[in-house]
């Protein structure tokens, strides 16, 4: 995938690294017992520790550490058995202690990686530099009063994982793919809701440009971008801006910028000279964090199947490569489809032993050998995951604003897949049946029967319809035979119309050609 951007002076390479702040799923905050629920009344989830009252001390929440380590393992990263919490000092009204407890020189998680599945089907490995735990700040509310700022400390002290990537990304698309993949992994692990709108996944983008293969350019950091779409827009804009600056003979200034999503532009916030001196030092209120290697190994073994492994497994059981990436993006959706596949296997009329083996194969294809016929039974059971069905189900879910996994679970998708496999229905009927199933809760076969949607594969019936049309349209038949072959599509349309769309399109094509040939 070409990632180069064209400027006046030739092509430029965009270099991107992302810092993601992911809010840890945990009932209590990182260093206090206060609750973390989103959307609570302001200042109702604040302990005296969060508000930094005199004499209050932080106590590390072990569950947040577990979540961070799990995430590290999910990113195939080194887990540091010794790490340290540092204080990052700066003054702001919504930072009660005047410092944020973070990890600076010794983070809990070291180097890891994320594999991107790019739209062109290729995969690319992106390095993770580190993951560390830190506290979130509160919120300053500037829009409540003409001259005052209000402070809401509900978020103050909530655990965040800062996940830093290497500058390995080369385009806005890759940055988008990275965030989608990271979001997917976090949700699989259950360590972060990864909902950018609710602010529990926030992204800072480091962007620079260079001539391909040249030395790294000066970077700018775009702070706190709050959707994947905006991240991609911000990077596009920022790369263009930097190229323009350089091509006009200027130099990029290292600075922090903000993205204005309304105007689609980035704007300078502060330059390097104005940047804070955070005066990091180890927090003397906390001991170094020491992890037990055996505990880490236990966590590693308890990890759920992650998207990359699920993808390989789905491919092995016959899910199409066209659709596998969107099937596995959400764990619940993948599980729902997997259950449909198992359901179809159980409906194949196999012996109980065969069914058992087949289901076991679905669960771990690399552990099980199947006979060729049984293997066919399995792979032919993945019909409910045909791209037509998956795409229509997702489209219907979007249109109805219904959760995808819930919809998958309540529709008779194995029945639908079966009808499609047996060519009882055509692909163009799928959406109508999916919508009808969503509305009526009836199974696919019933709907097909009731609506008479059955695909006509009876040559006689189709031939009769063709004959009637060719007789009616003798002028056009003459034109066709004189060489205007484009008219074939017109005739197909007429036949489909006459059969109310139930005719098998391939058959119609074939018969028409024959008849028109005379």
């Amino acid at each position, binding site marked *: 995938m070409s990632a180069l951007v064209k400027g006046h002076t030739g092509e430029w390479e965009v270099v991107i690294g992302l810092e993601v702040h992911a809010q840890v799923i945990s009932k209590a905050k990182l260093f206090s017992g206060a609750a973390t629920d989103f959307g609570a009344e302001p200042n109702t989830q604040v302990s005296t520790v969060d508000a930094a009252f005199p004499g209050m001390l932080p106590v590390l929440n072990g569950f947040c550490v577990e979540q961070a380590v799990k995430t590290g393992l999910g990113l195939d990263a080194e887990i540091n058995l010794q790490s340290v919490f540092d204080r990052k000092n700066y003054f702001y009204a919504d930072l009660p202690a*005047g410092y944020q407890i973070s990890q600076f020189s010794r983070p809990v998680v070291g180097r890891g990686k994320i594999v991107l599945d790019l739209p062109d089907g290729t995969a690319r490995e992106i390095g993770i530099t580190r993951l560390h735990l830190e506290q979130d700040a509160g919120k300053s509310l500037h829009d409540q009063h003409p001259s005052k700022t209000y402070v809401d400390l509900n978020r103050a002290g909530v655990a965040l994982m800062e996940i830093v990537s290497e500058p390995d990304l080369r385009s806005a698309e890759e940055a988008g793919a990275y965030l989608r993949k990271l979001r997917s992994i976090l949700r699989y692990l259950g360590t972060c809701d990864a909902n950018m709108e609710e602010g529990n996944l926030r992204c800072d983008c480091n962007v620079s440009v260079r001539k391909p293969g040249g030395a790294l350019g000066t970077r700018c950091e775009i702070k706190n971008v709050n959707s994947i779409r905006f991240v991609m827009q911000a990077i596009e804009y920022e790369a263009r801006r930097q190229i323009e600056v350089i091509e006009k003979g200027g130099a990029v200034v290292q600075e922090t910028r903000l993205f204005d999503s309304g105007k689609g532009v980035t704007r300078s916030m502060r330059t390097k000279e104005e940047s804070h001196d955070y005066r990091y030092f180890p927090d003397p209120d906390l001991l170094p964090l020491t992890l037990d290697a055996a505990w880490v190994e236990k966590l590693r073994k308890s990890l759920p199947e992650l998207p990359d492994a699920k993808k390989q497994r789905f491919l092995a059981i016959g899910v199409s490569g066209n659709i596998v990436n969107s099937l596995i993006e959400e764990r619940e959706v993948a599980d729902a489809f997997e259950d449909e596949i198992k359901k179809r296997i159980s409906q194949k009329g196999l012996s109980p032993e065969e069914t058992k083996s087949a289901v076991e194969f679905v669960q771990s294809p690399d552990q099980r050998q199947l006979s060729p016929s049984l293997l066919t039974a399995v792979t032919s059971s993945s019909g409910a995951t045909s791209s037509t069905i998956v795409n229509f189900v997702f489209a219907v879910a979007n249109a109805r604003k219904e959760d995808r996994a819930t919809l998958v679970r309540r529709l008779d998708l194995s029945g639908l897949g079966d009808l499609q496999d047996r060519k009882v229905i055509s692909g163009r009927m799928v959406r109508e049946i999916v919508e009808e199933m969503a509305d009526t809760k009836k199974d696919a076969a019933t709907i097909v029967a009731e609506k008479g949607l059955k695909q006509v594969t009876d040559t006689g019936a189709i031939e009769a319809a063709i004959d009637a049309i060719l007789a009616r349209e003798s002028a056009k038949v003459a034109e066709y035979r004189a060489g205007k072959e484009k008219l074939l599509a017109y005739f197909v349309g007429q036949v489909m119309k006459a059969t109310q769309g139930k005719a098998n399109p391939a058959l119609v094509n074939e018969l028409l050609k024959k008849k028109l040939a005379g």
Partner: protein
Amino acid sequence: MSLNALTIAETRDRLRRKEFTARELAEAYIRAMEAARPLNAYLVETPERALAAAAQSDARLQKDEALPLDGVPVAVKDLFCTEGVETTAGSRILGGFVPPYESTVTANLWRNGALMLGKVNLDEFAMGSATITSARGPTENPWRRKGDNRPLVPGGSSGGSASAVAVHAALAATGTDTGGSIRQPASFCGIVGLKPTYGRCSRWGIVAFASSLDQAGPMTRDVRDAAIMLKAMAGHDPKDSTSAPVPVPDFEKAVGQSIKGLRIGIPKEYRLDGMPKEIDALWQRGIDWLTAAGATTVVISLKMTPYALATYYIIAPAEASSNLARYDGVRFGLRVPGETLDEMYENTRGQGFGAEVRRRVLIGTYVLSAGYYDAYYLKAQKVRTLIARDFDEAFKTCDAILTPTAPSAAFAIGDKMDDPIAMYLNDVFTVPVNLAGLPGISVPAGLSADGLPLGLQVIGKAFDEETTLRVAAVLEDAAGFEAVPAFLAGAA
């Protein structure tokens, strides 16, 4: 003999024998507290609270179900947060702050039956060696030099605690010690002050000065009382990650045990040039007393001693600069308005903090700044490790260490005030103990030529307060310190 002259141990026994009631004892202390007002030891008096607690103690004593400290009237350094009672750390910036929580150490005392007489003065945020930097004015030492009526400092930062105990306006007091703040005022006021091992007492609810050095401890009339108080105050607290999960022994049992065969280390680096001869002589007397009691002495080397003060004055301000960032006028305490947020910070902190606190915040900010961190903070941490290693090495050849507590007796209020370095030198013998996290106790051992108390310090191994107390009790017996401060002699 007045009730106020009794020790905790004596009071405890007589209360149990019902020779007097906790209420009578509390009333006597409330009168003494009122009489001592000219010393400005108490910032807040809580007589109703004391009497209410005494009534509960009496009820238990009546049923012979007394708690270990039932009826013991205690003064609380105003660095400990006390629920419902103003806690200011001696600072204008915390004026009017009433905590909605009780510190673990004071809660432990009340749980053991002790009662609070009030909150006592200190150097602002415990930063000082003379109790002169408090926003509420200086506290006076109840002692006077012979033939000289100029008021003297009680030492600091726990000067209010030391003064109150010395003048019998409290039976015991809580103190905190970051670089000598319990031991040096104990020495200046002729009482016992014990800084336990770092981690022995919870720091939860104590206004933080320098978190890696701060430690709470008792200030009492004698060594046995210090042991009794420490048992009640100490213990692992899950709310303080740095408090040690170790059992709390019955420290009182160590008091009175023989020191025969113990090896006492005498650090050669503690013989300072220009140290008053009487301090040296006192130290030698201490060595003789311990030898006479059957201990042997061994000269040890604590070679990093010359660097201890400098190390302390980097690490403590660094931590303080960060710990005190929370006093920003946003959520509690003083707020001096400004046009912008930054201006509000400047106004509030400029007017809320006194000169010494501002000085240390500036030093601390400087040593943590980019470009200086390695040269100052990081280097200081390395030296701190070496200082601790010195002690580790020394304790291979000895069981406890004997030193003077401070290089001088109490000085006049107003002295050394224009010279921070001279002031910092007060802590030259005590600071290394905090840097190494060890227990140290100051015992009154004699009088200076002009009649002021002088203390000797015993330093123990980590979590070996028992040996420390054992040695201290022998010194106390041998010294037979019975002198009485001028203020008390005059009042009596």
